[in-house]
């Protein structure tokens, strides 16, 4: 009896004590987090590596963007390409580019940034022995010469129209040559960017700290942590509790939930990704223009975009409003939605007795598109069966052309129309990135010309013509253009999203 009484007293005392200690510690936490300039970002996937030369995925580039810098940058607001590590450039002839570099820039390891570093980086990136995933960015480059400490001359094999766009791609960031020879940049990156690498625990987190010697002044944030949270619902809950302060690429179906959270700001910006329905252009039925017209007129794209909770922009144009080469006239140039016309076309041409396989990846908005389009095509009289697959299997099946209809998307990092039309629709890339197997000589010619012309106005016109040609032929049905998104804790200020979904933390601070 006595014993149990003692036990009860002990229990109560310990509960009270633990409650007190809990309170006091959380109070100090709250204060310190307000004072210190640190930021935790939750990513659903871990980075593959931290070298711009050897990677090509968004999780890696979100870190690379902070640690390294490129010669040029596309202004997130105006879409214009501006010098970054470069000071200026000249093109004495169509195949020669002379870049003047900024002076006095130093890598995090003390190595000076100069023409030698640029030559080293680009030569390594384009060297076949490196097998860099984005070596294609510098494929037209013929020779790189160091003119003096801060001048580099690049000769191309043929006029390279989207060269500056390529030089603003995060995979052409300049690396420290001394560091690259000494260590593996994949694990220990060294660049010139506003943040320095601290540590990486694979599968858990990557830590960065501010570069106090950054040429335009040190960033406000002193410490940045990239935390791996594989499940997006968990990441959102962590944002709600304040455990992380920043997430991006928000799923459309979670927008309402995020909007209802008190301490969360949502940033949206019209972006460069495009999502489209493509026919398999090698199938007999797809060669019939009436078939493609019937499909296009059966799909109510306005109703679909309304389902995206504001995360999609409606346009018929393949080259999106935020991509170089876009012209407003293409936005409404496609076959309009008209269910009656579609039904008539289907009946008259006997499309109703041929089974159609709609291949769809079972992730993100692909399922949403597949179900809505299947229902609408069925209403028009088509016989459509959905086959949904996990992402990797889907890519294999789509690349092999095992479908009649499928959905594809392209996030255009450089924001240049040539970088969309060439890989996705040029006949050079059939069996590779041209999943729809679109093959049109006139179109090929226009796209090739857009790649080998240096005059930007001329390029824009060529891209517009190529784009209009595709839209007119219903080569694909554009479902929507992506909106890039991020959600942050209200204490985070100054975050700016690029239309390609990337972001810089340089101007970010906490209040």
């Amino acid at each position, binding site marked *: 009896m006595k014993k149990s009484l003692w036990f009860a007293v002990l229990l109560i005392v310990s509960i009270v004590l633990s409650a007190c200690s809990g309170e006091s510690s959380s109070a100090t936490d709250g204060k310190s987090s307000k004072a210190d300039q640190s930021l935790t970002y939750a990513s659903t996937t871990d980075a593959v590596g931290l070298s711009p030369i050897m990677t090509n995925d968004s999780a890696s580039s979100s870190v690379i963007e902070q640690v390294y810098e490129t010669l040029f940058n596309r202004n997130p607001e105006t879409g214009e390409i501006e010098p970054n590590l470069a000071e200026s450039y000249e093109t004495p002839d169509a195949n020669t580019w002379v870049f003047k570099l900024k002076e006095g820039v130093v890598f995090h390891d003390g190595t000076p940034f100069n023409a030698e570093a640029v030559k080293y980086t680009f030569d390594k990136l384009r060297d076949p022995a490196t097998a860099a995933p984005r070596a294609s960015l510098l494929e037209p480059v013929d020779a790189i010469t160091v003119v003096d400490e801060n001048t580099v001359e690049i000769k191309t094999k043929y006029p390279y129209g989207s060269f500056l766009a390529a030089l603003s791609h995060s995979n052409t960031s300049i690396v420290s040559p001394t560091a690259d020879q000494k260590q593996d940049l994949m694990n220990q990156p060294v660049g010139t960017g506003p943040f320095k690498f601290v540590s990486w625990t694979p599968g858990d987190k990557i830590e960065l700290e501010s570069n106090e010697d950054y040429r335009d002044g040190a960033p406000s944030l002193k410490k940045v942590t990239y935390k791996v949270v594989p499940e997006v619902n968990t990441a959102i809950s962590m944002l709600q509790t304040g455990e992380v302060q920043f997430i991006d690429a928000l799923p459309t179906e979670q927008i309402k939930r995020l909007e209802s959270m008190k301490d969360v700001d949502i940033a949206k910006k019209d972006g460069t990704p495009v999502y489209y329905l493509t026919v398999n252009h090698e199938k007999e039925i797809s060669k019939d223009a009436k078939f493609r017209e019937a499909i296009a007129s059966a799909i109510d794209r306005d109703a679909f975009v309304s*389902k995206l909770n504001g995360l999609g922009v409606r346009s018929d144009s393949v080259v999106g409003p935020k991509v170089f080469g876009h012209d407003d006239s293409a936005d409404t140039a496609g076959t309009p939605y008209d269910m009656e016309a579609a039904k008539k076309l289907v009946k008259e041409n006997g499309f109703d007795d041929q089974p159609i396989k709609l291949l769809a990846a079972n992730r993100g908005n692909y399922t949403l598109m597949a*179900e809505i389009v*299947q*229902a609408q095509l069925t209403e028009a009289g088509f016989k459509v069966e959905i086959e*949904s697959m996990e992402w990797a299997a889907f890519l294999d099946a789509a690349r092999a052309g095992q479908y009649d209809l499928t959905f594809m998307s392209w996030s255009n990092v450089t924001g240049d129309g040539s970088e969309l039309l060439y890989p996705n629709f040029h006949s050079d890339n059939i069996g590779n990135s041209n999943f729809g197997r679109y093959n049109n000589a006139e179109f090929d010619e226009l796209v090739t010309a857009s790649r080998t012309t240096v005059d930007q106005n001329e390029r824009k016109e060529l891209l517009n013509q190529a784009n209009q040609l595709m839209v007119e032929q219903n080569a694909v049905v554009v479902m929507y253009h992506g909106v890039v998104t991020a959600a942050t804790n209200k204490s985070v200020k100054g975050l700016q999203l690029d239309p390609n979904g990337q972001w810089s933390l340089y101007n970010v601070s906490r209040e």
Partner: protein
Amino acid sequence: MTRAMLEATDVVPVQKKKEKVYLVTLKRLLKNKLAVAGLVIICLQIAMAVFAPLIVTHEPAKQVLSASELPMFSEGHWLGTDNYGRDVWSRIVYGARISLIVGITAVSLGLVGGITLGLLGGYYKKMDGIIMRVVDLLFSFPGILLAMLIIAILGTSLVNVAIAISIWSIPSCARIVRGSVLSIKQKEYIMAMKSLGASDIRIMLRHILPNATAPIIVFATMRMGTAILSTASLSYLGLGAQPPTPEWGAMISQGQSFMWTSPHLTIVPGIAIMLTVFAFNVLGDGLRDALDPNMDIQ
């Protein structure tokens, strides 16, 4: 002893006795309130599946994008609508059809395989070793993993789900049947049949199998619940029903993205699955008790 003699000599009284056995079983079953509840739920579900086109208010695949994610008890949609504006009630009703068809197909196929293997294994001592080792091998896989493996080989579709679940049912059915066969085989009336020169097949099918029906009925009923749950699980994982098929598991998987804004999209199909599995389980339990010859008839 007396029963065995009756079987071997006179047919008419056996028939009468059988009728009596059924009546007794039914009486016992009806005394078990939970089992009756299960039976009622199953009957309702069968009615729902059979008369689906008469019950539903909308086409199950008909989308109305402007009326999506309506809450429960909305006008014209008493269970609300999903993300595509499809009527949840209509999808649940058609979903019952899919669950029952896949469940019955899978269990029947599993019974055919399991009974065959069990009879052969139990009756012929020489085959027993091989058959039971194969069964042990099948047992060593966790059930859902085995089903996923089979679907990975055959491809994703509801038919393949039924096949996968039936294969998964074979080992437990084979073991149960073999156990009964082993004990029945020792009975005097089987010995008598043998000495009278009856063929093995005749003995197995006409005399052993009918006497082993009780555990098989119980197994099949319980297995229906498992089969329906597995179908839902596999569809939830994206390995079963392909969209827009209104399968319950697939409905949950689709609805889970909307847990925070429209919880009914996961809760309603979840309750449907739960009720069905519960009904089959309690009915199976009740049947086991009712068919147990050792229970007192009161």
